[in-house]
């Protein structure tokens, strides 16, 4: 049984976000890594880059390969025939990022440099 009665619930917290046209830079090594990682995937699979609340510095990057979401609200960037999606609600946080890939055993993998970040975490996964 729910603790919430039928009355007294407030309206959803308003979130005002400036939606901008996203422009990102993908380095050659990152493009190669994306194509390699997604080589076995069908055309319906996309790479989604997002910024969620959390992490040491306030926001946490997330990258995942998923089936193309049904919902609207994503901006699409084509890289070597593969699709990168960024949600409109992340557009102001992720516009201008440089996506790189470092092939090292320690601290390797995809790296994001973000011009919108005033601070970032040592591991590179969080920014604020």
């Amino acid at each position: 049984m729910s603790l919430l009665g039928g009355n007294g619930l407030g309206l959803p917290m308003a979130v005002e976000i400036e939606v901008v046209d996203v422009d990102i830079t993908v380095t050659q090594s990152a493009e190669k890594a994306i194509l390699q990682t997604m080589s076995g995937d069908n055309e319906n699979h996309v790479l989604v880059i997002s910024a969620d609340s959390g992490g040491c510095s306030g926001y946490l990057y997330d990258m995942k390969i998923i089936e193309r979401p049904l919902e609207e609200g994503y901006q699409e960037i084509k890289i070597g025939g593969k699709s990168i999606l960024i949600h409109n609600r992340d557009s102001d946080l992720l516009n201008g990022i440089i996506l790189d890939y470092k092939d090292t055993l320690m601290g390797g993998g995809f790296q994001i440099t973000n011009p919108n970040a005033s601070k970032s975490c040592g591991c590179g996964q969080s920014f604020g």
Partner: protein
Amino acid sequence: MLIRDPRPISLLTGDTAVEAISKLSTNRIVLNSENNSDRIVVCDSNGRVVDAPYVVWDENGVILLHCTTKIPEYLSSVARTLSKNSSHVMNATGAIERFVCQEKYLPRNAGMSVNGLGVSGLYSIALNPLDYENIHVVDLSSDLLIEFGGLTDSHLNGNHLPHHIGLLEYVRLDNGCYPGQEIHARMDSRNPSSKKLIRINLQGPRDIKSLTIQGHKCRLIPEWSDSYAHGITHQDLLDGEYETEFGMVHTATVNIAL
């Protein structure tokens, strides 16, 4: 006596709510199977506590029982994250009745209760009790919160580590990256905390910042009720009555700050 707790309550809707709030907290939410509840601690980037809400799972979403007197600011970034999945942060303060009481006076048929809190672990939180018509009800004030061993805005102003205000058990460093995690990890490896939160009863001056009790320095949190204040001192100090430079003081450990 029942004490009605007016502090804000939020509802987070959607499948990603637990994940979204866990990424901001010192611990990952693991809902207790007995009453579907847990507690999280949210800190700033310096590892200082800004809120320590109880988390209750409800069929409508995740309910946060905040310890602050205003809706905390970190919820706006949670709302932003949730909004990508058509989920929301809603103010549920008016939709749930929240009470604090001594455990022995806990109303039967409470929708949910958490016990063993506050000074000496004597206090409980009860939500939506059904049968309290004949029980005297008063509103919770900061004076009562201090008396019971609760967190006031003076505890949650970004000046106190969870280790010092009765919240250490909610710092679990296996949760990965969260605001303040580097500070807590460094403390854990280099300087394990030996402090605890106590309530003191002192019939002396109210403008002191610290006092020494049985050789242990006690740093006071600068908010007094009529008779009580909270202090941070060494965990070896036993509850009791002691002579200090400011007169006799009675100390009681705050088990888990409510």
